[in-house]
């Protein structure tokens, strides 16, 4: 899964900023190794953890320069926790984050402050992520001011960015968040994230709360901005359609682990993990003549608390074999290596059609 950069190196669309780029195109912009975060729910009488949530449980991935990596998964899969760990809004329990060759935090590496100039984030809730007492312009100018840009220059930059995200500065600069619609607020949040001129933008369910017609506008804006500034995106969403539209590569997470990862089209055409398959067939159909007749999975996604040994998807998996309960599968490459899945039966799964998957499934009580 680490040697997928090759297909990007020749891509003329990947534009590098010569003043800030360090390792060249082949070096991943972001490398994450063994990222882990457990939340402790209960402690025993000795203060030792008795029950813990495995929010992110050993995640490895690379984000290549100029690409959009989509992360999909259901609630509790750890996708938002991953975003917060990358921004160091939460302290990871273990793991390494390398930004363009430099380890983040620790001695001799990139400082958190410097990392935050390179990496910014847009949150899902457009309202709560803006300070209600600050005007739009002040909110956007805040970051540059923190990093030492003058008050006047910061405000000028804020106005320029407002224009960039499609909001007329004359009309919007002095407005307050409650005077804007959801789509307008999310544009402001995007402008705020861009104000530090980051190279990587993490979009955590950034369009999920918007109406569909507004969502399309914001997605177009994101595509334009990416081209304009040569950005790299980490796009987190539960919406498989949107992820498919915007991402170059996709990572599917389940209960704190990577279930599958690959180039978007390859992954959507031949998903190799039974969970990815289930997710896809759970998407509402857009064809009135081919409505879903049968739910691909029974029950709710479990909480990642005190997991049993073996594969985490076992209890819900239609293709489970004895081996699955004993051994936790690692992410293994399939075919050309750009596509990998954490399933013992991955090779079989990607060849299956939906019908055979459905018949092998039983209604569990």
């Amino acid at each position, binding site marked *: 899964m680490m040697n997928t950069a090759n297909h990007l190196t020749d891509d003329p669309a990947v534009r590098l900023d010569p003043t800030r780029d360090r390792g060249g195109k082949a070096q991943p912009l972001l490398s994450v190794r063994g990222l882990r975060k457990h939340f402790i729910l209960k402690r025993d009488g000795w203060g030792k953890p008795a029950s813990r949530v495995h929010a992110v449980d050993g995640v490895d991935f690379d984000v290549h320069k100029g690409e959009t990596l989509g992360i999909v998964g259901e609630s509790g899969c750890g996708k938002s926790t991953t975003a917060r760990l990358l921004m160091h809004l939460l302290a990871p329990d273990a793991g390494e984050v390398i930004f363009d060759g430099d380890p983040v935090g620790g001695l001799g590496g990139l400082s958190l402050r410097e990392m*935050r100039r390179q990496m910014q984030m847009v*949150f899902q809730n457009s309202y709560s992520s803006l300070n209600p007492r600050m005007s739009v312009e002040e909110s956007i100018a805040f970051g540059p001011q923190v990093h030492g840009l003058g008050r006047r220059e910061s405000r000028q930059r804020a106005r320029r960015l407002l224009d960039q995200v*499609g909001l007329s500065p004359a009309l919007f600069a002095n407005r307050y968040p409650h005077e804007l619609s959801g789509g307008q607020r999310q544009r402001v949040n995007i402008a705020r994230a861009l104000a*530090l001129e980051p190279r990587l933008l993490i979009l955590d369910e950034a369009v999920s709360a918007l109406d569909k017609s507004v969502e399309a506008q914001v997605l177009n804006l994101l595509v334009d901005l990416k081209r304009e500034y040569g950005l790299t995106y980490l796009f987190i969403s539960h919406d498989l359609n949107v992820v498919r539209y915007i991402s170059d590569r996709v990572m599917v997470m389940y209960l704190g682990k990577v279930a599958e990862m690959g180039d978007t089209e390859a992954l959507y055409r031949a998903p190799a993990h039974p969970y990815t398959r289930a997710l896809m067939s759970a998407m509402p159909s857009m064809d009135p003549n081919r409505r879903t007749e049968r739910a691909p999975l029974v029950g709710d996604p479990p909480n990642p608390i005190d997991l049993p040994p073996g594969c985490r998807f076992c209890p819900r998996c239609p293709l489970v074999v004895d081996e699955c309960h004993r051994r936790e599968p690692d992410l293994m490459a399939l075919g050309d290596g750009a596509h990998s899945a954490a399933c013992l039966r991955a090779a079989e799964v990607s060849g299956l059609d939906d019908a055979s998957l459905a018949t092998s499934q039983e209604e569990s009580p």
Partner: protein
Amino acid sequence: MADTMQVTPGAAGTLPVAPVKGYWHSVWGRLRRDPVAMVAGLVLLAIVLMAIFAPWLAPASPYSTSMLTRLQPIGTPGFPLGTDELGRDVLSRLIHGARLSLLIGVMPVVNAFFIGSMIGIVAGFVGGRTNTAIMRVIDVFYAFPAVLLAVALAGALGSGLVNSLFSLTVVFIPPIARVAESVTTKVRSVDYIEAARASGAGSLTIIHRHVLGNVLGPVFVYATSLISVSMILASGLSFLGLGARPPTPEWGLMLNTMRDAIYVNPWVTVLPGLMIFTVSICFNMLSDGLRSAMDVK
């Protein structure tokens, strides 16, 4: 037709253009439309002006006694609101008394607002064990009934204006700190604080730019509602002889010294109490109005 549907820059901005105004401007706009709050505010303004211009407004000296004109009823020529047990003009004493009464009513709350908010914000923002430690200490003070604590402190320190100001301040720090702490804890976990942290801002900058503005508003509203309590407590301390000392004109003290005359001249005796009542209720109503005016959505 699909290709004619293009997003044009600025297309998102089709909301009707509303006049742009600041937050406090819009708060004032809403407050102005609240008749109760406005009347309360005007009454308070009048009383404050009366306190400031007391020497010019008062028809007589608040100190000049006259044994001949003791305990005159309301409407006596020369003494529109009658006289007290030493023959002093009650109207003049009420006007002069506003100065001290407002001072010892408002000052403790103002002091406690600054100290309490600081304690609460620090505790709420730092969180964890520091928060627990600070708030437990605060709770110990909070556990005492306010009146008892004020009387005990003022009694231990001895009577006098400064001591009563100090003891009242101590009384009001715990409730304000608790409110500030709970609001800060709530604000701290909101996304915009995370966003500010994500932009690399340090804790002090975040407190200064993002926390203060969102915490001090609600705490301020709460503090204004405490002014009425403070007025009454301060008057109580004076009444007990722990606050201002005779012959200083102060409403609580006036209530105390005239109480023997209640059977002789009930209406005159009630006047200082009426003033205390008016001022406290006006502060309460203004605080209520402010609360709803500051509530965006």
